[in-house]
């Protein structure tokens, strides 16, 4: 039995797609308020891990607990109750392309709160302002840059004031300035004791925001510890990973 004090606990997670084994008995635990970065090259199952943690995919084996709730056995309605406590920033932001930026952020508020229309709009504007977007709120996602999409995606992920937030490659494809701004926003969440799991291959950003690092390769955890633990590792993959990251 796992301690309910942990915000996220995954034990013995296995996931395959056909004959391809993506995660091979992975264990993970994240304490409340902790920021954990999951590192690894493309195709090592980092994004799959996040989708398992929020119940978008089901593991072949293993257990996943969010705030003590075992999500692998929940009904869809029960799972949705857990999901309301989690924010998720997708790699490509996944904004609803038929809705304006403001409507994208209003969407979870409209679904899950009893706020009146004006209150909803006001809250959505505030959330967008917190991520640095104060104009062009009526634009459609197709009309804005990748960096802006990430910010709007982050504002939408934070709409329900989640206790846990998961980031899938938050800085991928962004210029260094925008990437630094996103990192700053994650640090701001950390200051507010929001639990964060960040999947990335951007070592520089990960170092600036994380309390702990998990390095994945071939479905297994190679390192689970501090950045010093990563640097001390003699594993050929990690040595190469650090070398490539400069």
């Amino acid at each position, binding site marked *: 039995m796992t301690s309910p004090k942990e915000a996220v606990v995954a034990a013995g997670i296995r996931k395959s797609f056909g004959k391809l084994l993506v995660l091979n008995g992975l264990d993970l635990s994240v304490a409340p308020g902790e920021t954990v970065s999951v590192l690894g090259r493309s195709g090592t199952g980092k994004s799959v891990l996040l989708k398992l943690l929020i119940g978008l995919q089901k593991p072949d084996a293993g257990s996943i607990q969010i705030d003590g709730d075992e999500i692998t056995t929940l009904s*869809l309605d029960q799972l949705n109750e857990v*999901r309301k406590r989690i924010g998720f920033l*997708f*790699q490509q932001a996944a*904004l609803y392309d038929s809705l304006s930026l403001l409507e994208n952020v209003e969407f979870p508020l409209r679904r899950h709160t009893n706020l009146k229309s004006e209150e909803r709009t006001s809250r959505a504007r505030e959330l967008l302002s917190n991520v640095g977007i104060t104009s062009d709120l009526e634009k459609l996602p197709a009309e804005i840059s990748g960096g802006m999409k990430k910010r709007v995606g982050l504002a939408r992920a934070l709409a329900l004031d989640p206790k846990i937030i998961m980031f899938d490659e938050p800085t991928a494809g962004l210029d260094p300035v925008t990437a630094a701004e996103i990192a700053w926003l994650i640090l701001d969440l950390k200051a507010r004791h929001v639990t964060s799991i960040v999947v990335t291959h951007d070592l520089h950003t990960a170092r600036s925001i994380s309390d702990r690092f998990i390095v994945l390769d071939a479905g297994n955890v190679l390192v689970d510890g501090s950045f010093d633990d990563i640097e001390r590792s003699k594993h050929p993959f990690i040595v190469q990973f650090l070398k490539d990251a400069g």
Partner: protein
Amino acid sequence: MIALFTIGFLVAAVAAGNPTMAAPLTLPLRDLGLAFIRWLGDLGLFAGRVTRAMFSRPFEGSEFLRQLDAIGAKSLPLTALAGAATGVVVSMETTDSLTRFGAKSMLPAVIIFSLIKETGPIITGLVVSGRVGAGIGAELGSMKVTEQIDAMEASAVNTYKFLAGTRVLACIVALPLLTLAADVCGILMGWVADTLHEPVSLQFFLNKGLNGVTFSDVLPPTLKTLVFGLIIGLVSCFQGMNTSGGTEGVGRSATSAVLLSSLFIILADVLLVRLIIVFFS
């Protein structure tokens, strides 16, 4: 006979629309059968989830009305036009034959019976499956490959209810109404075509044609389009929400949504006509 027809149609439909069975002639019969059963099972599970979601609170009233407008109101011009064209064609095709057999006076009844009992419902079903099936397949397919459906689920939204349930229900409600519109346009244009050939008043045409028409002639054929709506909504949403393979996959979903819903409508029509004959004749 109907059972054989059904099996043949189901296999043809699945082979035509399922990407895993894209080259059915090259697949062994056993694999073809397995893929068909798997597809049908997945569709059944999907239908179960959508049905459960549709009837659970809270209801998605505003989204349903939006879909009813997109699916029903915006399909009205096309179905009305298709119904009108059918009325004209039926009138032109049968005038000559009936005159030859000395039954020219039966023309209004032939047009009206033909439209309300079969041509109106099936034409409406096929036209709506083309317009709406492609739209739903492409829209949901595009949302799937760009992770918008995942984002909705991550936001604790039941997509079976919000995306699929509203569209399926809108299709079910819209089809009978569109069929009535197609029937009316077909009858009016049938009269126009007839009166251009040999002038006759609309009142006389309707009196002649509607004489002997009972509710059991109108209601069952019109209400069978509820099933057509269910087929269009379910199949299109299923194909769209199971899209994979990027933009090519979106195109494939749109095509297969139209193809499968059209084929299943034709199959359902055969079965429903048989049932109507058994229970309402």
